[in-house]
Each structure stands twice: as C-alpha cells, then as structure tokens.
C-alpha cells in the first residue's frame, strides 16, 4: 500500500499549508508516462523520508483538482513542489532519479 497521500482542495490546506513536516506535492496525471515513471520513486521516498518529509500527490486530471493546478501555475508534469511552513520553497519539473531527488529535498529543507 502506497504511503503517498492523495490530495484534493478539501485537504490541501490541512495536509500541506498547515503541515508541521515539510511536504512534497507531486502534480501528476494518469495519461503522463513520465509521471507514471515517478510513481515508484515517490512510493520509495515516502518510506525513506518517513518522519522527515510528507509525500503527497495531486491528480490534475481530476476536474475537482484543476483549481489547485491553476493556483500553482502547473503547465508541465510531473511537477514536484516542496512546501515548508506553508511556503513553496522549491519545484522540480520532469523525471528525476530517486537518489538525486532525495538529496535535493533534504538540502532544501535543511
């Protein structure tokens, strides 16, 4: 079972903006091949970074989530945004290897 939390406009503020832990939000869509490739990477990061960073995702293909995609200016996916204390502190666009992504996330939240 994936530990990656599914987000929607109903839980975005609680789970991301008001989160005590830094949060990585993966904006993705089912028709995006590179997003699908990132999925096991994020599942694995969710285990590796448990207690340090919360890993979440937003399906931008779901009409209910499209305002979130618009609000965060998503024009290309996969797009991973890192939030800390309610602020967006970094974004990563496109495919990433797990190791370098993990290092970049840890460096940004340090």
């Amino acid at each position: 079972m994936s530990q990656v939390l599914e987000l929607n406009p109903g839980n975005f503020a609680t789970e991301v903006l008001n989160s005590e832990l830094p949060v990585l939000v993966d904006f993705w869509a089912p028709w995006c091949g590179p997003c699908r490739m990132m999925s096991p990477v994020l599942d694995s990061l969710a285990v590796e970074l448990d207690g340090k960073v919360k890993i979440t995702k937003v399906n931008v293909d779901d009409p209910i989530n499209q305002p979130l995609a618009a609000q965060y200016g998503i024009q290309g996916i996969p797009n991973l945004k890192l939030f800390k204390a309610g602020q967006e502190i970094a974004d990563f666009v496109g495919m990433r290897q797990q190791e370098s992504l993990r290092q970049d996330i840890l460096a940004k939240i340090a």
Partner: protein
Amino acid sequence: MEGQNYELLIIGAGPAGLTASIYASRYKIKHAVIGSLPGGTMTEAHKICNFPSEPNINGWDLAQKIEGNARQLGAEFIASEAVEIGGQYPNFSVELANGQVLLTKSVLLATGTKRRHLGLDNEQQYLGKGLAYCATCDGPFFKDKIVGVLGGGNSAATAALYLADIARQVYWFYLGDRPEAAEPSWLEEIAKRDNIKHQPKAKISNLVGEDRLAGVELVGQDGQVSQLALDGLFVEIGSDPATGLLQQLGGQINERGYAVVDAGQATTVAGVWAAGDATTASNGLRQIITACSEGAIAADSIFGFLKKN
C-alpha cells in the same frame, strides 16, 4: 553457472524490449525486462494509425496491450534503469539505478533514443513553465492558449494536430521550406485545421519571458530578429540513440551513434544484441513495428546462440 541469475537481460521496455520478451518467454529463456516505463517513448504518441490491427489507437493503450501480452506469457519486469554494464559472455553484470547488480549470460539492449533539447542557455528556466517536450503530457494545460510546435517530423506533426484540438492557435515552426520529414497523411490532416499556422524557415534563437515563457525570438533568413508571443512551446526536434551501455562494453556504433548490428541484431560484442530505435537495422525506419520486428529477430538469434553455447 553459479551466481548467474538470468540467461538474458533485456534492457529497455519499449516495443523492441517487450516483443523480445514475448518471444523469449515462448522460447523458455530465463529473462527479465529492465525499464521504468513499459512502452517507453511510444506512450507519448497520441495517435497511431499504422500498427497492423490498430487503425486508431493512442500510444499509451498500445503500450499497455503489448506489456499485457508480455506479462501474460510470464515476463519478469524490473522497474529501474540500467546505469552500468560490464563483463563478457557468459558473465555480464548490469548495475541498476537503485544500486542492485544483476548477472546474466546475454544482454539485449533495447534502449531507444533520447530526446534532443534546444540547447539554449535559458531552456531549463522555462521547463514546465511554458516549455514542454511532451505534447500529450502537457498539452491539456494550454486550453485556448497560443502555442508553438518546433520540428519538421512526424512527432512535431502529430503534436501540432493534438494541440490544435486544445489550444486556440498553433504555430508550427520548422527549418526548411516544408516539413519534409512528416508523413503526407499527417500533412493532409494538418491542412484541414485552420488554427495551425505554418512557420517555415524558422530558427528559434531565444526564449523570452519572466517567470514563465512569454514568447520566442526568431531569426529570419536575412538575419532579422523578430519576436512572437506564445504561451507554450513544444519541442519535437528528434532524438539521439541511447547507446551509452553498448559503448561501455566497447561495442561499435556508427557515425551518428546508432548501434551497429548484423542481420540477427547481434552487436559487435559477443553475447550482446540490440533492437529498436537505437540500431542501424530496418533501413533506418524507426517505427513501433520495426522495433517489434527487431525485438523478435534478436530473441530468435539469442535463442539459437544460447542453444549452441
């Protein structure tokens, strides 16, 4: 031999690798397919009309069918990327991006191609902020916007058609007088769309904008620079063969970087075969069907080789 996990490792899960797996399963060759995206590049094609029995299918669905076929016959999939390869027949070692090392008697490289980038200094800055390399991935974000497609081949033509259904206006940029490398059938469909505007002899010299892409700078034949406002630019300027692993083994590539193979898809390294878009086979026609064909031929050659050796 002790410690050897596989008779064959297929590196790459596109149509060549998947078809090779289908044949390898039928030949009862103990094998695995390494790749993080079953289907590979074809998953990005929004419309495929020339794959026999499929007059109109998108790349994602076709990839799932071929993958399903391979899985049904018992293929083992390893969702990772091969980063290092070493050894020689019959002892190759393949290191994956996750650090795992696999041992195999033989190898099939079905690694396909890597997309070409524009090569402009500010390219990275606009990635995901108006600049895109995958129309099917990012096209939906440009509803009613003005976009450009750069490239003169089939990928660019199909991207322009796909985007014409979403965007208000599509500018199609290519270097020559005409998009020479695009199939006439695509050009016929494009001619029916009044929101696709051809921009021949177009050289994009710069990307402009602040937080997001706002347009492109074009250099005309006379050297005059002009700007065109765009909300998005989709780059489809071809790809280069991913033959790094073959080079690690000392295998021969041609002057354009493609893996040199014989009629049985064998490379110049004993125990290593190559199939799909990264090879010199199929008369350079790099299509899903030729990738499948090369995968089948390679699996058959490997079967014959393993039986004798």
